[in-house]
């Protein structure tokens, strides 16, 4: 399986920008890198997806360098409701297996 590495936790305050980096190797060359948000007792929810360079939607931005060995999720101006676990998801180059990172617990304080 492709190996992914994320920070275990990050703390922030309301209104700040939070950046979470996921390192990944052996990912499928034709596949997207996707980030998910998960609240307790719920299934993960899609945030954003990209292939390379920068992607932005209404809730986040995703930065992917040319070598695609990492990706950075950027959450602008976080609020208390953004407290959750964030996962990166990649596909394996060799055998088409999906690999979630271990997750980054983001805690937003007032």
């Amino acid at each position, binding site marked *: *399986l492709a190996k992914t590495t994320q920070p275990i936790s990050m703390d922030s305050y309301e209104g700040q920008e939070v950046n979470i980096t996921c390192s990944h190797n052996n990912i499928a060359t034709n*596949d997207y890198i996707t980030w*998910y948000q998960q609240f307790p*007792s719920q*299934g*993960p929810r899609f945030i954003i997806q990209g292939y390379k360079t920068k992607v932005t939607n209404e809730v986040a931005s995703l930065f992917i360098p040319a070598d695609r060995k990492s990706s950075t999720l950027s959450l602008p101006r976080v609020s208390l409701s953004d407290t959750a676990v964030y996962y990166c998801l990649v596909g394996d180059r060799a055998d*088409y*297996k*999906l690999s*979630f990172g271990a997750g980054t617990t983001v805690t937003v304080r007032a």
Partner: protein
Amino acid sequence: DAGVTQSPTHLIKTRGQHVTLRCSPISGHKSVSWYQQVLGQGPQFIFQYYEKEERGRGNFPDRFSARQFPNYSSELNVNALLLGDSALYLCASSFVGGRVLTGELFFGEGSRLTVL
């Protein structure tokens, strides 16, 4: 439109028993994947099915099996349950499949299995 639905939501089994978990994808989605999430850890990939064919399998023993039906719903079966199989089992569906591994996955709320 209904999202991904999973059943049962909670169940308790004893060691050695068998369990079947069910998943109905979003209408129009042809790809279904299964994940095991142990408390405090990220989801671990078990299987992916696309158009009723297995597209990928994670590092799980043969006690785990799955299938996808003509209506694209899916079942996950686990035989000879162990205490370590206690987890939240998540199902996800997606519109894309084939050689595209991810695309946007839509997850159900999961089936929480407790093995005593």
